[in-house]
């Protein structure tokens, strides 16, 4: 067995380059995911079934399936559909990096939306009643009362999800790395069937 420490030392610069990509993936998908999470949250809080049902289905699907499967559907699966290849999003979905961003954003958006909802539901009714008594309108109540309190309540759970997101960025390697190493291994059994 050759456990080579110099090999580790030699590969440090390349790994540092990888850290840059990890941070890019993390920052971009955390940002896009947060926007998506807020949209989903507003859809669910709207009280209209035609807004809240699609949001609930989205959250259910993205929380109930492995992120690896989501990445594979977006990267390997979507090009099967002609209208995706002809759409303006194709330059993004053609690249592994773009696909990873899309998959991670959709995934983290679903999780964070649930976390934010927990925060909003945790806001004391007394505050909202006090705001109503002061004559605040519904959107004012949401911006000045619910949002600051809910953000504080949701922060601990959000930090956990951020760590999950950081760990999930490592899965982006599967859609580039698989092409080189793993994919050959996966395809070998089927090759035997046809020879």
């Amino acid at each position, binding site marked *: 067995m050759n456990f080579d420490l110099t090999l580790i030392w030699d590969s440090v610069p390349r790994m540092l380059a990888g850290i840059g990509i990890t941070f890019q993936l993390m920052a971009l998908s955390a940002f896009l995911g947060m926007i998506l999470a807020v949209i989903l949250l507003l859809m669910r809080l709207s009280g209209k079934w035609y807004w809240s049902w699609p949001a609930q289905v989205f959250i259910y699907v993205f929380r109930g399936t492995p992120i690896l*499967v989501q990445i*594979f559907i977006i990267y390997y699966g979507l090009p099967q559909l002609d209208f995706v290849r002809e759409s303006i999003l194709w330059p993004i979905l053609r690249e592994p990096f773009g696909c990873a961003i899309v998959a991670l954003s959709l995934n983290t958006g679903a999780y964070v939306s649930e976390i934010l909802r927990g925060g909003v539901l945790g806001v004391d009714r007394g505050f909202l009643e006090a705001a109503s008594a002061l004559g605040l309108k519904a959107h004012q109540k949401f911006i000045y009362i619910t949002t600051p309190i809910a953000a504080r309540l949701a922060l601990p759970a959000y930090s956990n999800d951020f760590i999950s997101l950081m760990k*999930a960025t490592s899965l982006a390697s599967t859609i580039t790395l698989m092409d080189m190493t*793993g994919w050959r291994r*996966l395809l070998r*059994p089927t090759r035997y069937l046809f020879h």
Partner: protein
Amino acid sequence: MEAVTGWWDDYFWGSMIVVQVFFFSLILMVLFGLIGAAMKLSNSKIAQKIAGGYTVVFRGTPEILVILLLYFGSAITLTAIAQIFNPEIKFLDVPPIWAGTIAIALIVGAYATETFRGAFQGVKPGSIEAARALGMSNLQTFIYIRIPEMWRLALPPFGNHMLSLIKDTALISIIGLNETLFVASQAISTTGKPFTMYLVVGAIYLGFSTIITLSVMGAEKFGERTTVGAR
């Protein structure tokens, strides 16, 4: 969807492997979690440190890294040992299914450690004092007071751990386990329909997640119904 027709049986057997990995890793996960929690709650400083290191390492590293490290690490080690006895051997590994099962059990076990520790600490001191007043021994207190109170507290996060386990099984396909994702990749290489095939995998996992969520909800209902006395 007609492209999937010939592949249903393969998907079924792939799903059975997911179920197998899930059950074995569930057992190991509970075991690791209980051992970890016992170490964290013990009086020994060394045991606390070891359990603390375990949770920090396995909660802080990506799942895929642990799986790859465990599989290839054990394979390299085993090969090296085997070559001492027989230089003819080129490659020897732990079967991917077991390397993967142990890896995801270790990862989720680290989360379960924290859950079980919190649940044991959440047992009300009053209940334990009452048990003492009734003259129960330590063992009796543990079985009749601590365990029943603890599992009701641990159940909601434990349900999430089970969901993590079932979703982590998908990662084992990377080290070559022939589960549903692997079946999908085989199907794609002959039919050329990646979207359809991966969508089937997603639907299978969604089904498993739904079953787990409903069972946990049922267990929570049972826990509430069978809670005796004042809360």
